[in-house]
């Protein structure tokens, strides 16, 4: 059984949040060319921090568990896209979100 503590949960949430944050920064960079350098710089800093935490997470979780759990970022990016950029989430995407939640819960139940 993988080692799963409170710190592991914090690291997992941090990785999910940081990956979402990077996507949002790169999207801002694409949408606002006049500020693109700043957004890319912030995104890259986020990526570095993300990698620091990700390596630690891999030291306590098997890769075969960590990666499926990170699938949640597809949901957080979709939600960020909706609330920050006004993108729509179609019924098809909501079904995808539901499936990822089910998959996440299944992996979680194995920890």
């Amino acid at each position, binding site marked *: 059984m993988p080692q799963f503590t409170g710190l592991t949960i914090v690291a997992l949430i941090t*990785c999910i949040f940081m*990956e979402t944050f*990077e*996507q949002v920064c*790169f*999207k801002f*960079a*694409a949408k606002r060319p006049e500020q693109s350098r700043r957004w890319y710089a912030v995104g890259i800093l986020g*990526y570095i921090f*993300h*990698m*620091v935490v*990700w*390596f*630690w997470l*891999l*030291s306590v979780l*098997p*890769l*075969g*568990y960590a*990666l*499926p759990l*990170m*699938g949640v970022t*597809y*949901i957080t*990016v*979709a939600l960020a*896209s909706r609330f920050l950029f006004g*993108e*729509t989430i*179609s019924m*098809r*995407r909501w*079904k*995808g*979100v*539901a*499936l*990822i939640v*089910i*998959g*996440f819960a*299944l*992996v979680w*139940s*194995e920890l």
Partner: protein
Amino acid sequence: MSAGNRLDRVTILLFGLLLVIDVSALVVEKLASTHAVAADAPFYVSLIKQPGTWIGVGLGPVQLWLWSKIIKRVDLSLAFPVSSFSFPVTVLSSQVLLGEHIGWKVWLAVAIITTGVILIGGEKDTERVSPPNTGV
């Protein structure tokens, strides 16, 4: 302008290359973390001495470059679902190459998550600025 949805040989080759690099990066990152924990030094001190750490980090820009080439050739609505196959391939690699025990529930979860990613990503207006699931 739409890039199109025709999978020619070059695009398939690019997809294959991206898949191999995605999975390789994750495997070497896992190996670097495992070795860093086992070393007789603080985790991060040991981690920066692991070649796998730098290989994994260095592959990030290569993945981004390949992804940008792919989405110039095909629509995201095609590129996104195809790239989601790195989920099952990575989990299979973690079992075969790293000897991890992956229970049937996790395999089922991987199948469900991959389907979910295909549903989320496989639409015309999908926008994601870096490769999905590189993670990392």
